């Protein structure tokens, strides 16, 4: 028996001609948050669905909490929980009815089921909404009731599939708080996300997935180091000056200037952010007007660019969304 919470070897899932997951190797240690980062259609959801025993792999093997996901799926199911991209509760029922139903299915009997449901509603700030039908909930409320449904009995491992996609910042922060509380209580969390920022906030280690393959793995620090500490983005006042600005910045800061679709915009990965002000002054001195500039953490697009040489947008156009 392995010591990993999740261990996959050469995991494959094929939909028709499309190899949605194409040989994924993952090793996730118990405790903490493990992030799986990638654009739409990269194979994140398909991978998670195989690990949660909702989908049978076409190749390779996966062990979750020491159990094979195919031959010992029942043991896996009794110890993991999954929250998908969409609220998976009965929309016609109230939040309370949904939670009581789940509590009963997990074996809480009589009033214990109701007590557990009330406790969860209170913890997730949904007591008031508890008597309303789930279809009337906002996006953030749905996500919370969905997560509450997943922890009726505390799972040893929780899969969260893009838990904050489409949420407003306040709801997103609430979900993040919930994830931290889960980890604090001893649950291992595997989280997929399209946002490097989210992985950075929550995850201890990250795997970057593209076209069904893991293309990078490591701590957030290691990953960011691979793309430089940050990215400098500028917009020039006159598109004709863009190339000249790129050359000047590259001389001062090192790195390769990258032009964007926007004819005024330019970006550059920077390893020493302290040199940026001087470099901008130099550009100005050479008569190039800069209308905007920002220095930030590399975006997912830049991580991708660094790892694959392609923009996320290019990847998306050649890859389709995973069937639900």
């Amino acid at each position: 028996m392995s010591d990993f919470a999740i261990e996959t070897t050469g995991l494959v899932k094929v939909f028709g001609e499309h190899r949605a997951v194409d040989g994924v190797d993952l090793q996730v240690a118990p405790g903490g948050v493990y992030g799986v980062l990638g654009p739409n259609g990269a194979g994140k959801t398909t991978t998670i669905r195989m690990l949660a025993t909702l989908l049978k792999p076409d190749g390779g093997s996966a062990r979750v909490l020491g159990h094979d996901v195919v031959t010992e799926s029942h043991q896996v199911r009794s110890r993991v929980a999954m929250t998908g991209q969409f609220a998976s509760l009965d929309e016609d029922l109230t939040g309370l009815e949904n939670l009581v139903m789940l509590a009963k299915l997990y074996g809480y009997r009589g009033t214990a089921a109701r007590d557990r449901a009330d406790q969860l509603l209170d913890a997730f700030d949904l007591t008031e909404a508890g008597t309303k039908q789930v279809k009337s909930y906002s996006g953030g409320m749905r996500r919370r009731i969905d997560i509450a449904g997943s922890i009726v009995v505390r799972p040893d491992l929780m899969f969260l599939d893009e838990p904050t996609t489409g949420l407003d910042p306040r709801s997103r922060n609430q979900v993040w708080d919930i994830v931290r509380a889960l980890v604090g209580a001893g649950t291992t969390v595997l989280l997929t996300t399209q946002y490097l920022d989210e992985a950075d906030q929550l995850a201890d280690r990250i795997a970057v997935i593209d076209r069904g393959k893991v293309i990078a793995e490591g701590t957030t620090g290691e990953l960011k180091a691979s793309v430089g500490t940050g990215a400098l983005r500028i917009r020039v006042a006159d598109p004709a000056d863009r190339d000249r600005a790129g050359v000047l910045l590259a001389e001062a800061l090192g790195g390769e200037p990258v032009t964007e679709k926007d004819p005024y915009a330019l970006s550059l990965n920077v390893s020493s952010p302290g040199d940026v002000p001087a470099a901008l002054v130099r550009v100005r001195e050479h008569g190039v007007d800069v209308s905007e500039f920002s220095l930030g953490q590399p975006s997912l697009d830049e991580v991708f660019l660094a790892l694959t040489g392609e923009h996320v947008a290019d990847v998306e156009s050649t890859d389709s969304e995973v069937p639900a």
Partner: protein
Amino acid sequence: MTTTPTSAAAASMDAKVREAVGSADRPEPVGPVASSLIFTHRALLKIKHVPEQLFDVTMFPILFTLMFTYIFGGAIAGSTGQYLEYLAPGILVQTVVMITMYTAMTINNDIKKGVFDRIRSLPVWRPSLMVGALLGDTLRYTMASAVILVVTMLIGYRPPGGVAGVVTAVLLLLLFCFSVSWIWTLLGMKLRSPESVMGVSMMVLFPLTFLSNVFVPIDTMPDWLQPVVEHNPVSILVDAVRSLMVGDPHGGSILQVLVISGVLVAIFGPLTMRAYSRKS
């Protein structure tokens, strides 16, 4: 963990979530019967929240009974009163068998909404979702049966088989409908949208209920058609139900209905479960 909760509200939420999550309760998951009944309860709660869905088990039966009695009655049996004697058991079977197709639409909706994923990842007996839903549907079929019986009796039908005959007839009908519903659970899982589910089940149910002895005796049909109609399971069911309601139970057709029901579950039960486990 690099950051701390940003506000007092978050901190209090965090503490409560920790407490809720920290609960070490790990009750034994429920058994197959209990989990099926929990899903039946869910179906009943849905009726409570969306009572419109009872339309098909109330208005549909009333319309059918009145329409067929008064339109065909005179032509087929000489008078509506006499025809009712023949039609009442038939219309009961036809109407209730027709409304079984809503089972497929419910299942299809559950898949779309993601409820399926949640339930499939629970450590409970896997068929219980379907069994529970079908038991809930059985309650709807019972309501439809009651509506038809009340309507036919209001316009003059007096079942010679008495209460015992009627109750046995309805029980047999419910068993048959429960078994037929496994075809719809399979369809509900295989087809893409509620609309296509509706289309396909109509295509199956219309010939099945009309190419039968529901409205007219088989010996009035052309020779080539008679064997088809005779072997139609709906005809056999109508025979059995009619015999029970008349008070002259026909053992042969009753036995056949039991066998057909068993065979339907034996074939479509496992096929449904296979589709359920493989559903991506």
